[in-house]
């Protein structure tokens, strides 16, 4: 059976014996095994789980097979996919021929299926399996794992001999530009991180991924939350209107040091992720919600600069501001430009509350710049932020039907609505020199939004905790700081008690979040779950993509459609194999023969 220009340069990573083992497993009707390595070829091997579902017998035999990309590959025993039903491939090993129905090419499924059982069943091969499984993440590694290999080669670590090092075909580059529609189709939830039932991911779900892969960019939310607390305590300690509280500056110093350490740690970890798992970072960039968190590191640095204790330094160099705003400026050019001219990433389609993070950076930069004494730069960023904030605000308020990302129920992400007006009010006050009417208007808007969310706190239940929740605390802290500044201007009992109340609320929220985080980190140990959102497949599993080489095989017929419905991990290929097996329908492009080949 000829491959149809198999576009998958499958990494020849798997050790020799593995395929046969896997075949044995699959012959038991176990759901497809994944032998994929890198998704670089887009089609990670496995297969069809249908077998497990007990659908018709054909399905049972479906075993993941991958078409060999070349005869050479077919011969190589470690061809991952291996198993060609009709192939008298020696490598395929034993179980294969039995399991596969006669003469029907098993489809090459290209999605790696989660292998719940499989992992436990390879104890004798464990080291190899382990090595094999490591390869599965290669597609997410920088340069598909070559960097790691280089580094380990440099370190002199003996590598398991894998023929692929020398002889593998160059992996096809993974699809660079994952269209935003894929994310909306495959994921759901207010943070777009829950996989829909019909979708599947390209990395194994059963095992814990490498830590770096599980470390999302939304972890920078912790930095945001803690550093804004430092600023709040600094404001409480140094403002005249809150002098009656006698807050000492020690709290600010302690919190600032903690946030400094946190920022450094998170930066370092994410830097490692960028170095070693660049593809994963790229996918996070294409995620419509996570892209906004790329502003978070720089905002956190801006917060650090603003919250610096007076004991450390009281005057910051202007160059620091330019250095910190440069990345924000570049990111903005990209993101706002996409809103304006991007076909699939236009605002009406991707607008979601997390977009506030991309707007707030402008106001925070303006605030810092004005505090430092700069004149034109803060106005620049304030103007840009204000213009785009208007657009975003209107769009989100419209709740356009084309916009799918707004959660129907309330979620902590809604607190981000409060962030922009409160920071904008403070920035305008600093630019103008006093808390004038413009600042007050913005401040009252922020206060209104805050209260309208706070009274609905009951509706914030029932959501899975995620690290991104830290990012949603900084608006509350920001509102508290704005209230403190406002009470400086208008000092009376109401404003002072309001500032105390809001600060207390913010502190309590952060504390509760800290407790929850520790709980999840050490007790439940699921602080960093597998990051499903970045591992979605590039193609819908059920759809028929005619441009896929193997596609002529698939041709969903009606009888397979109900089968599809039962299958959770069904891939179109798998079903189509059955379909083509059963109905032998002519393929759309009339290329049937290869199937049989």
């Amino acid at each position: 059976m000829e491959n149809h220009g198999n576009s998958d340069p499958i990494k020849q990573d798997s050790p020799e014996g593995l395929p046969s083992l896997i075949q044995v497993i699959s012959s038991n009707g176990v759901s497809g095994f994944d032998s994929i390595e890198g998704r670089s070829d887009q089609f990670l091997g496995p297969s069809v789980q249908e077998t497990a579902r007990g659908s018709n017998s054909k399905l049972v035999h479906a075993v993941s097979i991958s078409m060999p990309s070349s005869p050479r590959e077919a011969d190589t025993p470690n061809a991952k996919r291996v198993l060609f039903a009709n192939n008298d491939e020696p490598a395929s090993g034993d179980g294969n021929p039995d399991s596969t129905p006669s003469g029907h090419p098993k489809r090459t499924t290209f999605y790696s299926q989660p292998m719940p059982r499989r992992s436990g069943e390879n104890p004798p091969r464990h080291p190899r399996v382990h090595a094999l499984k490591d390869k599965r993440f290669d597609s997410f590694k920088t340069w598909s794992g070559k960097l790691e290999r280089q580094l380990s080669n440099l370190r002199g670590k003996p590598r398991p001999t894998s023929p692929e090092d020398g002889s593998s075909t160059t992996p096809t580059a993974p699809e660079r530009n994952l269209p935003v529609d894929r994310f909306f189709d495959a994921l759901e939830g207010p943070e777009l991180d829950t996989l829909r039932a019909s979708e599947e991911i390209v990395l194994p779900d059963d095992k814990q991924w490498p830590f770096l892969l599980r470390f999302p960019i939304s972890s920078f939310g912790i930095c945001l939350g803690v550093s804004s607390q430092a600023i709040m305590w600094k404001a409480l300690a140094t403002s005249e209107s809150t002098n009656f509280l006698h807050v000492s500056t020690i709290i600010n110093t302690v919190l600032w040091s903690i946030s400094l350490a946190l920022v450094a740690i998170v930066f370092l970890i994410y830097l490692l992720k960028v170095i070693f798992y660049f593809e994963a970072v790229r996918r996070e960039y294409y995620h419509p919600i996570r892209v906004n968190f790329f502003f978070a590191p720089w905002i956190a640095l801006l917060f650090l600069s603003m919250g610096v204790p007076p004991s450390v330094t009281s005057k910051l160099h202007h160059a620091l501001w330019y250095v910190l705003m440069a990345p924000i400026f570049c990111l903005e050019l990209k993101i706002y430009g996409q809103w304006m001219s991007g076909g699939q990433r236009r605002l009406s389609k991707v607008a979601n509350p997390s977009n506030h993070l991309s707007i707030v950076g402008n106001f925070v930069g303006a605030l810092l710049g004005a505090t430092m004494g700069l004149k034109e730069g803060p106005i620049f960023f304030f103007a840009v932020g204000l213009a785009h904030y208007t657009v975003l605000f209107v769009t989100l308020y419209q709740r356009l039907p084309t916009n799918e990302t707004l959660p129907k129920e309330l979620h902590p992400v809604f607190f981000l609505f409060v962030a922009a007006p409160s920071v904008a009010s403070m920035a305008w006050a600093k630019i103008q020199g006093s808390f004038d009417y413009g600042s007050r208007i913005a401040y009252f808007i922020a206060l209104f939004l805050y209260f309208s969310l706070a009274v609905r706190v009951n509706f914030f239940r029932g959501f899975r905790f995620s690290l991104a929740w830290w990012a949603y605390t900084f608006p509350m802290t920001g509102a508290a700081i704005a209230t403190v500044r406002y009470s400086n201007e208008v000092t009376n009992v109401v404003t002072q008690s309001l500032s105390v109340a809001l600060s207390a609320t913010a502190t309590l929220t952060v504390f509760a979040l800290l407790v929850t985080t520790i709980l999840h980190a050490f007790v439940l140990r699921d602080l960093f779950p597998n990051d499903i959102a970045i591992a979605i497949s590039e193609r819908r599993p059920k759809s028929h993509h005619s441009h896929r080489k193997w596609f002529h095989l698939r041709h969903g017929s009606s009888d397979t459609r109900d089968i599809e419905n039962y299958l959770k991990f069904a891939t179109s290929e798998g079903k189509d194999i059955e379909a083509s097996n059963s109905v032998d329908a002519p393929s759309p492009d009339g290329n049937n023969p290869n199937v049989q080949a």
Partner: protein
Amino acid sequence: MESLQIPHQPPMAMRPVLVDASQLASGVQPHHCRNRPNHQQTASPIRQLKPSILTRLHAGYFRISLSFASQALLLKMLTQPAAGNSSSNPPPLGHFLRSDGPFRSISLLFFWLLALVAQVLLSALYTLRCCFHFQLVKAEFFHHVGVNYLFAPWISWLVLLLSVPTAISEIKAPYLALWWAFAIPVVLLDVKIYGQWFTTEKRFLSMVANPTSLISVIGNLVGSRAASRVGWKESAVCLFSLGMAHYLVLFVTLYQRLSGGDRLPAMLRPVFFLFFAAPSMASLAWNSISGTFDTGSKMLFFLSLFLFASLACRPALFKKSMRKFNVAWWAYSFPLTFLALASAEYAQEVKGTMASVLMLVLSALSFLVFLGLMLLTVLNTHRILREDDPILRFDKDRSRN
């Protein structure tokens, strides 16, 4: 001149623009004589019109005269002291021009006259088009892109008025009369078009919004600046608020891109430059209303600078439209000039090096683009004047547009 009827006459194409203009002028008479019988034969169906200058010249051609006029305004602003400021405030480029006053004013006068000639010519041709091919003008009016360019002639006239080489205070009466003559059509068009945005179902804003809608906003803002230059603050504020209110709505709508960008053909991508032309003009208008380049003007100027940077970073957006020269390329010129104008006023207010450098860079850029476009037009006169505009064709069946 039979040759005018025949497209692709190489000798014609070689002549420089001015000569062509005179040739056009001379060629118009026999031209329309020829057209008249055509017009009578094909009174109702639009399709069978014999292609001629008049059928091809749609309102988008006024981009050319607008660019000329705005360059004249830029020249005036750079070389002459600002009207409202004290005479001690030197013009931004004053110290660059070693020669004394007369040279400056002569060059400015020459340029202004050139712009005036271009505008008069185009206006005359367009008037003839209205006379003889009124169906085409109506077709333009009903087209979602063409209707916005109906503002363009009036904007050019207003900019010409603003850039008049003499001090405005000396010619107050005729200036005011002319201002009325040009502002009233703008307001009438406003009433019609803005009203349609939220009342006429077939022409709701969400359906017709496209970047050329910003031209209506620019029209209001130019009228506002022209009014405040002569001291009429109330009309200035009135037009300014009208323009800004609709600018806000348009800004949000265009950013949302509800209909997915299928409203604008790819060849018209140069009109994306209008995105930053509107806030630049708003900044200029607010500057002349409030007297100084205060925070509001600065914010608008910075916004336009940011949008310009954002577009400049995306050359791929314009690739498709840059394959063949067409009159839409003139849409690159006047927004750049407006931005340069705003930067000049900004530099006058904030007398720093960065601001002056920015002003010089932007002015040079706008002038270079203008020169380049002039050159390309001269080299491609046959395409502009004798071939049909590939993008906006109103002499064909309307459904094709």
